[in-house]
């Protein structure tokens, strides 16, 4: 092994180390894994920015900056030591706790109590869902799950606030965004398009299957929605915005999201209201195992799937060019 390899530059080990260090891409070769100024995101960046962006080379200002940098560095050093101590303390505290907890896989642990028993033994007859986890999150603990959809909704609102660039208010930066996007994305890449032709229908069909079978097999609205969203994103990467915007523009995304969430809201309000007031509910579990069974669960799964797919797609487009 110690034999010197004359072609060390091209040996696997060297490629691997260089790949880990980040200046070599096994596929693209030496291209631009790391842009000219070697450590783009590391400490080198500080100097880079100071040299290039801060052009005011006033002497006193630079002295001030260096003083500040020294202060900051000293502070960061202290901060790191302190942080390590805190982290080790928390780790020890939690490990100490773990040693007092019930054993792994113990059937007599406190959490395997009447709650879990009822979910398993009567879940099928009470909710109609074969997949007990889905029955639990969409029927027994549906309020949590509605909250969870709202988390997704509020996060997408925040991302909209941060990243959406509006045509009316800021046409200039909108145009820059569009130009950048056209510049940096692959245009009509044949390999990508061929792969997408094959994969996108498969992904979307599989996603729909996962959503619709959420109450029968593993999966459900969330995972299925994420798969559909990934399919849409792949289609977008292969064919560009002109094609996708015919069926997924801002209006459609908004309408789908609001429609799905509104249905979710009303359906669950009805079920909560009848449940709490002990009224008769028209929702029945149906025949377990059928697609159209399990009461509201299948519809709720579809709603969650739509919301998740739309949100994931809009996250991607917002990051890419600041608009859906």
């Amino acid at each position, binding site marked *: 092994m110690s034999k010197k390899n004359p072609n060390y530059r091209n040996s696997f080990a060297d490629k691997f180390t260089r790949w880990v260090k980040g200046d070599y891409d096994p596929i693209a070769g030496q291209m631009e894994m790391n842009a000219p100024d070697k450590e783009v995101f590391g400490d080198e960046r500080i100097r880079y920015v100071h040299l290039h962006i801060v052009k005011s080379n006033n002497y006193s200002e630079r002295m001030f900056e260096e003083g500040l940098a020294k202060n900051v560095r000293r502070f960061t050093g202290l901060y790191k030591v302190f942080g390590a101590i805190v982290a080790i303390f928390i780790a020890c*505290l*939690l490990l*100490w*706790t773990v040693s*007092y*907890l*019930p054993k792994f896989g113990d059937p007599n*642990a*406190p*959490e*395997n*109590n*009447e*709650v*879990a028993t*009822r*979910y398993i033994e009567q879940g099928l007859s*009470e909710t109609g869902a074969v997949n007990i986890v889905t029955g639990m999150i969409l*029927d*027994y*603990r*549906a*309020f*949590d799950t*509605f*909250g*969870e959809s*709202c*988390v997704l*909704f*509020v*996060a997408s*609102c*925040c991302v*909209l*606030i*941060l990243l*959406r660039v*509006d045509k*009316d*208010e800021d046409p200039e930066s909108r145009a820059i965004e569009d130009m950048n996007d056209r510049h940096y994305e692959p245009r009509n890449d044949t390999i990508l398009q061929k792969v997408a032709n094959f994969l996108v229908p498969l992904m979307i069909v599989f996603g729909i299957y996962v959503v619709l079978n959420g109450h029968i097999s593993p999966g459900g609205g969330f995972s299925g929605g994420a798969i559909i969203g990934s399919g849409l994103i792949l289609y977008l990467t292969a064919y560009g915005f002109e094609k996708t915007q015919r069926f997924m523009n801002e209006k459609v995304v*908004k*309408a789908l*999201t*609001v429609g799905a*969430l*509104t249905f979710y*809201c009303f359906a669950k*309000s009805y*079920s*909560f*209201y*009848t*449940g*709490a*007031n*002990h009224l008769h*509910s028209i929702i029945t579990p149906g025949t377990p195992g059928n697609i159209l069974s399990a009461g509201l669960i299948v519809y709720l799964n579809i709603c969650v799937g739509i919301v998740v797919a739309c949100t994931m797609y809009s996250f991607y487009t917002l990051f890419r060019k600041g608009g859906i």
Partner: protein
Amino acid sequence: MAFVQNFPFFCIILSMFSAIISFVMNGRVAKYIHVAMVTAVLILSLATLSFVVGTGESYTFMMGHFPAPWGNEIRIGELEALMAVFFSLIMMLSVFGGMAHIDREVQDSKKNLFYILLDLLMASLLALIYTNDLFTAYVFIEINTIAACGLIMIKKQGRTYVSALRYMIMSLVGSGLFLIGLTLLYSITGHLLMSPAKEVLEQIVAVHSYQVPLMVIIILVTVGLGIKSGLYPFHTWIPDAYGYTTPSASAVLSSLVSKGYIFLLIKIFYRVLDFDSVISSHMVNILFVFGVVGMIMGSVAAIKEKNIRRMTAYSSVAQIGYIYMGIGLGTTAGVVAALFHIISHGAMKSLLFISISGLTEVSDGRSDYLSLRGAGLRNKVAGAAFTVGSLSMIGMPLLTGFISKYLFAAAATTAGSKMITAWVVLAISTVLNTMYFMRTVLTLYRPVPEETHKAYTVEKSRIETAAIIGMILLNIGLGVASQPVIKVIEAGLAMFG
């Protein structure tokens, strides 16, 4: 089941639904929806409060068809209803008070998103107040955090991004710790609902098993929620977060968001962990120490601060220290004082932040002391409002701040060894408060030559003036007629047990 008993559930669903529907509306319609929603929530909560006070006992409301240990549920008592009333009232006044600023500072196309954030904030606060389920609490804590982050960065400037980032990092550490505490709690009790979990915990405490996990749970939950509410050593994000966003958002953030977490903490102490075992774990002593240190250090930082909005934000740090000191006393009277201070601090801080926006408006939009000279003369309403808020903060009789200080001092008399410390620190803190608030008020009324500032025509927005007057009245009302509120708090706390 009486129809009134559905009202808390209607409040939560209504605020969530108005958020969802605002997504396809424009800014103006979203504003109207928000105002209508908050008004409706206020009225419904008042009805709930009167119902609960009338019957004198609490009730649980099933969220679904399944009873207690299996389904989600919310629980309504006097304290919860009272908090809902005050939170919606303060939310309404804060939004009205900063309406003109929202119109100016938020981009037109993003106004509806701003109101969505406020709607969801209201929903999450209501859910945090009413919930009887720990995991629901976690989910709504996250909604609260994200919505608050959106409110902080709504102005879209570099500085607000940085403060939002710092807020998010601190909050996420807090929620991580809270969630792992919750996991441990679930693994030793097997329940997520508060009442069954408490029953199991009582058995556990009785047979002295799982003592270490129980202590660690108390630590993790307290520290997690403490970080999120800005307890002293974790307060560094507060001045930036409150200092640079739009006034309504500052008011809402300082008077409601952190208070929601504190209320949840008190609820968990009483309804899950049992306050006696919290006291015997010495966690209250730690909270007491941090609260006391926060009271002093927050005020000291406020004195050093030159920017009036950041000064007020630092004063929030001190006031959160008051609340934790009250909890840390370890007596029921201390917790009553803390709960009253949650309400009264909400009333005072929203008034201060809203009036500051009126004052900076007539000082070239600057908020340092030099520019603010004479601002109280230029904008009389805002000046008067700031004065009332400051006096209330200092503890002027007839205003709400006096009542909370009195309650804290009275609660300290029964707290044994903590009595002297609490009194001394209350006195020091009052002196420090007086120093920086009186300095500000004197600056505001210091006459300046006319030509330094160009003549400002204060836009007389009737809604904002009405909101400011409403807040002043709320401060006076809480100060004059505090007895009924305190009685409701005491009764509600007794229902918790």
